[in-house]
């Protein structure tokens, strides 16, 4: 197998039969190339959608206020539903199996932040500590808001990396005071949110927000996580919320517009099913591509052996053993298919690497091919090329040289 002379003989044959070599190689390279692109695109799509979910906790449920659309107990439709701290307290007390409950209240429209001579406009949002989990933020330095901050209306703020960059550049910021609409707040922490939009924010205690900026007890929305609740359980929780809110706010339970509930558990499950579908699709097409490659290689190997029957006859007359004939055909096929497979692999991965920085879509990021699958597919093609070559090569090596020589 590692006889240099044998390889020289094979290389000489390959060099002299460029078209044949190209055709065999092309069908393998093309198959692997397409497979890589396919696997990569599937993965890119999955990564993109996965990333959409990583921006917020995938097990969160968000409740937004709306407007009634049905008359109820003598009340006209079109009534705005308003949430207050009572909704928070009630939910915290009554709804079982929920975590990280947080109200939310944006300071609007004025949203000026300043530190010394640096200014910036960023979203200012009053929240409970649960928001850290709900928004899926990473705390890089310091801490996020805690219960005491909320209960004692502290003027503290957690800032995002974008805000820090705008106001502090590289200066120390923990413990410094920034002015939010001209009121000083102490910086207690730095966070990062993978969503670009959500990273242009500062969070302050919701209680402080109400006291200083908005007045009253109103909040804009509520959110919480559901632990490891299944989709069915999450739907039960959703239903419970709708029933209770309807009762307390006097709207019909069937009124879908009075409050909006955004159930990420359900959404996530839907996308999980979509992924499964995409993966199945990619596999079916991938297997189809591989089969097409196998058929292509087999076909060419059959023709190659047929074409070489006379040459095989000559070689046998000159003194070639059947083993050496089979070896010649097979090693050539293995050499070509492995090399072509490698080329397809490199081209496919190269193309993915080349285009992935240019694709800035929310639903398509990091198209990467599973290298193990790609390598296995290459090996499969090499082996099937060898098997496809082996059967006719053995037949050709077995026939009598006379018959082979007669083959014109």
């Amino acid at each position, binding site marked *: 197998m590692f006889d240099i*002379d044998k390889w020289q003989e094979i290389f000489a044959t390959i060099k002299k039969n460029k078209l044949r070599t190209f055709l065999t190689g092309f069908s393998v390279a093309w198959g692997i190339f397409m497979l890589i692109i396919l696997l990569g695109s599937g993965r890119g799509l999955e990564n993109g959608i996965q990333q959409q979910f990583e921006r917020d906790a995938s097990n969160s449920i968000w409740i937004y206020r709306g407007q009634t659309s049905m008359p109820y107990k003598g009340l006209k439709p079109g009534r705005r539903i308003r949430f207050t701290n009572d909704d928070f307290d009630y939910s915290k007390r009554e709804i079982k199996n929920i975590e990280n409950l947080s109200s939310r209240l944006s300071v609007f429209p004025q949203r000026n932040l300043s530190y010394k001579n640096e200014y910036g406009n960023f979203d200012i949002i009053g929240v409970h500590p649960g928001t850290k989990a709900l928004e899926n933020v990473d705390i890089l330095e310091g801490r996020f808001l805690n219960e005491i901050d909320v209960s004692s209306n502290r003027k503290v703020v957690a800032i995002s990396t974008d805000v820090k960059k705008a106001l502090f550049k590289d200066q120390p910021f923990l413990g410094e005071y920034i002015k939010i609409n001209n009121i000083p707040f102490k910086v207690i922490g730095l966070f990062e949110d993978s969503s670009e939009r959500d990273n242009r924010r500062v969070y302050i205690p919701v209680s402080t927000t109400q006291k200083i900026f908005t007045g009253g007890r109103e909040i804009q929305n509520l959110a919480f996580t559901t632990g490891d609740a299944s989709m069915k359980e999450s739907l039960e929780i959703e239903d419970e919320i709708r029933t209770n809110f309807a009762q307390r706010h006097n709207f019909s339970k069937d009124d879908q517009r009075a409050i909006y509930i955004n159930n990420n558990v359900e959404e996530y499950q839907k996308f999980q099913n979509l992924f499964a579908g995409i993966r199945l699709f990619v596999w079916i097409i991938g297997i189809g591509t591989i089969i097409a490659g196998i058929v292509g290689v087999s076909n060419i190997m059959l023709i190659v052996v047929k074409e070489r029957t006379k040459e095989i006859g000559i*070689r*046998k007359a000159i*003194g*070639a053993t059947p083993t050496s004939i089979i070896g010649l055909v097979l090693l050539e096929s293995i050499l070509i298919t492995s090399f072509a497979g490698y080329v397809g692999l490199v081209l496919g991965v190269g193309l993915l690497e080349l285009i992935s920085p240019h694709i800035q879509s929310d639903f398509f990021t990091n198209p990467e091919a599973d290298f193990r699958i790609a390598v296995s597919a290459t090996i499969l093609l090499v082996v099937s090329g060898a098997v496809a070559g082996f059967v006719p090569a053995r037949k050709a090596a077995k026939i*009598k040289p*006379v018959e082979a020589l007669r083959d014109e």
Partner: protein
Amino acid sequence: MIELKGLHKSYITGTNKLHVLKGLDMLIEQGELVSIMGSSGSGKSTLLNVLGILDSYDQGFYKLNNTLMSNLSEKKAAQYRNNMLGFVFQSFNLISFKNAMENVALPLYYQGVSRKKRNSIALEYLEKMGLKDWAEHMPNELSGGQKQRVAIARAMISKPKVILADEPTGALDTKTSLEVMDLFREINKDGITMIIVTHEKDISEKTDRIIHLRDGIIESEFISKN
């Protein structure tokens, strides 16, 4: 060198059984230059294939250099062909994608001779054939006579005991044919046994012994006036 006794060979094509060789006895000594003549269908090519271990036989025995050639494995047959026999065919049978030198060197490849060495030996043989300047040419760039001389060089390179030629002049013009026959006589002088199958009378007359085959049996045999 070659001994045949009661040799039978038939081909089965579908339901038909074609009895080609019907009990041949033949003795050819080392260094003889023999021609086998016969019209088409006389069995002369079949006989040559049996002699060349390119085909098997059904009955009788065939001894080459005092070794019985029967029930040989493919590998063994390949070895005998490689060491003891050289072939020259009517259609030359050169490998089209190898140049003259590589074609001549090929038998040595199967003997495990290194590339460099076998190519230099091949050049020597091509020089003997007067084809040194054509060593790098591909077969399709050579004339019929040149191709046949390349094929003869290839048959000789493994220093065989016997050279078997199947209608070696069949594709050549008269002048070239005579040149090739002169070449064969030259080679024969070095002690290599030559067996030439032909249906051309003037070719056979250049050999020392003529064996006439007809319908699978030896019809007549006589010593040529050479």
